[in-house]
């Protein structure tokens, strides 16, 4: 009789714990030097279980299939000149932000999970960390490959890693991940797998990617959904790790709660960029930031996830109420910031069309017409001596010491004011965009005083290609140091727009 096939559960145990061993001539403490200093107490690593029961054999098989599907679609898109069938070239500005801001984070996540895979003492989470480390590298690769096709035809795609380390708005995602990878392994995994992957990546990889599909960008939709399918496994890792830590020792509960409080707000501020992308940069829109926040955060995370965590003594994140209050303001504030400083950005912005403003007013009946529409009406009048028939904010903004976003967030309780907070630490004043960022700073001031703030660094003279010849030469020298060439200013004076019109001059359906 043929030998019976192993069940999924048996295979999982053999290929994870079965491959682990007890060290004999080196102490566990020496092998895992980072396992204790964060104060997390573990009694039994074997209590950890991966619900996906992923083994290395299955991992290669299914990941290879996901890649085959992605590259088939990318090849078809390239061969078929798919970029010409996008809804509009304006759409690609959201993808420029994605490639410059998110793709380098995928690479950092690859490094972070390699650290987890090396340093967690349990075989189960080490295996899951190892898979995730490879997933994140795959995400980097497929995103770069999708972006490299657009780079042949459009500005803003040429210098993502260089820009990620230098450009002002990209210090928002960069500083977020630098904060995570400089934490210990348990904080890192709570920050990224739980707070970011479970609670927030849905906003980026589901409704936004659906938007990519709707705007004709099949490669981005495919890498997005392909990445998010791995993300489902990562969400599970995050949830399992957090539940496991909470079950292992009651002393872990307050530590985890503080990490959830910190990393909810860090991640939420980071995803505010996605709000601007969804509400303003997609020519055809699937759902608003507010609608996706309600579905993916209020329903799935607050009503779903946090109800499950109550029994461990975990409550929803400290500043969650503020995020809910901000949902009708956030995307408008962030797009206005991006719009105002587009002279120094590697993407284009534009005044929303009348139809787009109508959509915004319909989706945000309490805020758009009341607090934001007039700014764009004024922006048409208040012209500045720069390319583009509209307003730019000539100057450099005050950045929040923690999230590094310019301090332009409306106070939902008093919408004619921007929130401005500050604190004093060792004789210096530090500024914040919100109570959430101030709370994060005050919990670890010695970490956040070290922040590399792009505006401060410009004033310190650290961001010039060559010393400026005078005040007029300051911004050009910074842009040169950023490697921003013809990537900035209003869309309607861009090379992208000129080319798009040229490529579509015989077609009547395109917005010109």
């Amino acid at each position, binding site marked *: 009789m043929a030998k019976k096939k192993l069940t*999924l559960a048996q295979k999982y145990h053999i290929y994870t714990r079965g491959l682990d061993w007890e060290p004999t001539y080196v102490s566990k403490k020496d092998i895992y030097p980072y396992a204790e200093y964060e104060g997390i107490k573990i009694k039994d690593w074997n209590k950890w279980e991966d619900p996906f029961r992923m083994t290395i054999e299955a991992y290669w098989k*299914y990941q290879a299939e996901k890649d085959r599907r992605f590259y088939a679609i990318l090849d078809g898109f390239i061969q078929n000149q798919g970029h010409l069938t996008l809804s509009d070239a304006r759409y690609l500005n959201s993808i420029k932000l994605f490639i410059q801001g998110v793709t380098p984070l995928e690479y950092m996540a690859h490094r972070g999970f390699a650290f987890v895979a090396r340093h967690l003492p349990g075989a189960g989470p080490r295996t899951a960390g190892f898979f995730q480390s490879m997933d994140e590298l795959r995400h980097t690769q497929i995103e770069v490959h999708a972006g490299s096709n657009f780079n042949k035809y459009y500005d803003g795609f040429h210098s993502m890693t260089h820009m990620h380390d230098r450009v002002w708005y990209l210090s928002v995602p960069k500083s977020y991940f630098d904060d995570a990878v400089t934490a210990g392994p348990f904080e890192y995994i709570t920050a990224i797998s739980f707070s970011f992957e479970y609670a927030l990546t849905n906003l980026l*990889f589901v409704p936004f990617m*659906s938007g990519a*599909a*709707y705007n004709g960008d099949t490669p981005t939709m495919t890498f997005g*959904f392909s990445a998010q399918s791995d993300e489902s496994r990562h969400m599970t890792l995050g949830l399992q790790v957090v539940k496991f830590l909470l079950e292992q020792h009651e002393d872990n509960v307050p530590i985890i709660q503080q990490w959830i409080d910190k990393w909810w707000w860090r991640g939420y501020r980071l995803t505010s960029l996605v709000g601007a992308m969804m509400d303003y940069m997609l020519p055809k829109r699937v759902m608003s930031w507010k609608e996706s926040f309600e579905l993916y955060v*209020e329903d799935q995370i607050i009503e779903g996830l946090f109800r499950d965590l109550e*029994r461990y003594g975990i409550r929803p994140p400290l500043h969650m109420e503020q995020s809910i209050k901000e949902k009708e303001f956030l995307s408008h504030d962030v797009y206005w910031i991006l719009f105002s400083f587009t002279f120094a950005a590697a993407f284009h912005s534009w005044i929303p069309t009348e139809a787009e403003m109508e959509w915004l007013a319909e989706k945000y009946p309490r805020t758009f017409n009341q607090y934001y529409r007039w700014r764009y009406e004024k922006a048409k009048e208040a012209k500045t001596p720069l390319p583009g028939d509209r307003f730019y904010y000539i100057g450099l903004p005050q950045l929040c010491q923690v999230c590094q976003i310019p301090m332009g967030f409306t106070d939902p309780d008093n919408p004619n004011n921007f929130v401005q907070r500050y604190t004093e630490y060792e004789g210096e004043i530090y500024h914040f965009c919100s109570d959430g960022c101030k709370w994060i700073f005050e919990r670890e001031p010695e970490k956040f005083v070290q922040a590399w703030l792009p505006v401060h660094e410009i004033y310190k003279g650290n961001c010039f290609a060559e010393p400026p010849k005078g005040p007029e030469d300051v911004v050009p020298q910074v842009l040169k140091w950023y490697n921003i060439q013809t990537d900035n200013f209003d869309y309607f004076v861009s090379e992208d727009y000129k080319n798009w019109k040229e490529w579509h001059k015989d077609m009547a359906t395109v917005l010109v």
Partner: protein
Amino acid sequence: MAVVETKRERFVAVDLQKNEEGYNVLQAILKDNPGAKIDEFPGYYKVRHPEKLLINRETVESFMGRPWDTQEFNLVIISYAGNFAEWDDDRILIRWDTHM
């Protein structure tokens, strides 16, 4: 002053790719989970249920017309809300731990 509006509902959900395989898995889910509701978006389906979602290998196979390994679910899932309470050779069960 703007008033905070909240719209809250507790459910489990799976977001599935809108392709041939995703469609077959969706049909199997609808058959095995009476009361499940679908929302359609460009590129994906969202299927939700107030309590649980069960994916049976045999039902999926009946729609696919071929053998189907439960780990192939990795190829059609985009995201989910809930918790994988069970995942073995014959079925996948998604639900929250706390039933309200």
